[in-house]
């Protein structure tokens, strides 16, 4: 399940809803990762653009990769503005066993940071400034500039 929300995530509602949804699924481990906007470098908050078609196919590929391990993935992300100390991201894994859960949440979150088509902006003085220096080129980027 992939959810996009306008503005900050309601973390207690989402963590609880997912826990209850899987309460009879016989998973032994549930690990959510919650990402929260830090007060740093004088920003007022962050803002996000999400490109949903590719995010969905990226997420679906992860669901397919986790299934043979017996693991289930869920994810929620914000669109638009998220202020300081509000949360913009939850990724979660459910699995029968803890090793699979611990390894999957790590790999899933890291690949999310490297690959998910979401762009982050700093909010400063009412402006929305692309956080280029903290952004990562997607694997294979530069194709159009290369002299093949």
């Amino acid at each position, binding site marked *: 399940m992939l959810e996009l929300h306008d503005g900050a995530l309601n973390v207690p509602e989402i963590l609880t809803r997912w826990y209850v949804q899987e309460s009879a699924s016989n998973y032994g481990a549930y690990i959510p990762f919650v990402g929260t906007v830090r007060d740093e470098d004088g920003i007022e908050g962050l803002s996000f653009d999400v490109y949903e078609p590719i995010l969905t196919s990226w997420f679906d590929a992860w669901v397919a990769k986790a299934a043979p391990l017996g693991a289930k993935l869920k994810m929620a992300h914000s669109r638009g503005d998220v202020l300081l100390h509000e949360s913009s991201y939850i990724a979660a894994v459910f699995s029968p066993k803890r090793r699979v859960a611990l390894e999957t949440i790590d790999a899933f979150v890291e690949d999310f940071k490297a690959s998910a088509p979401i762009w*982050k902006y700093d909010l400063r003085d009412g402006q929305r400034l692309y956080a280029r220096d903290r952004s990562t*080129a*997607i694997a294979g980027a530069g194709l159009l500039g290369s002299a093949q």
Partner: protein
Amino acid sequence: MITVEFLGPIQKPILSMEASTLRDVAEVLRQDDEMAQWIDSCAVAVNDTLVSSLDTVLKEGDKVSLLPPVCGG
């Protein structure tokens, strides 16, 4: 005709152009001064699937998307 769209922070309206492969798109965008700061760091999708070859064939109505560096979370 195919369309080229620019995602996230790239402030550029959708382009329409004739192109039979992604190489044709690359040739146009390399001439575009606005794209100079982006072209080496963008990933490319055709109809919402990431691609890795300039020889990718394009057909009428295809959508090419340029994805600049990402930072979700």
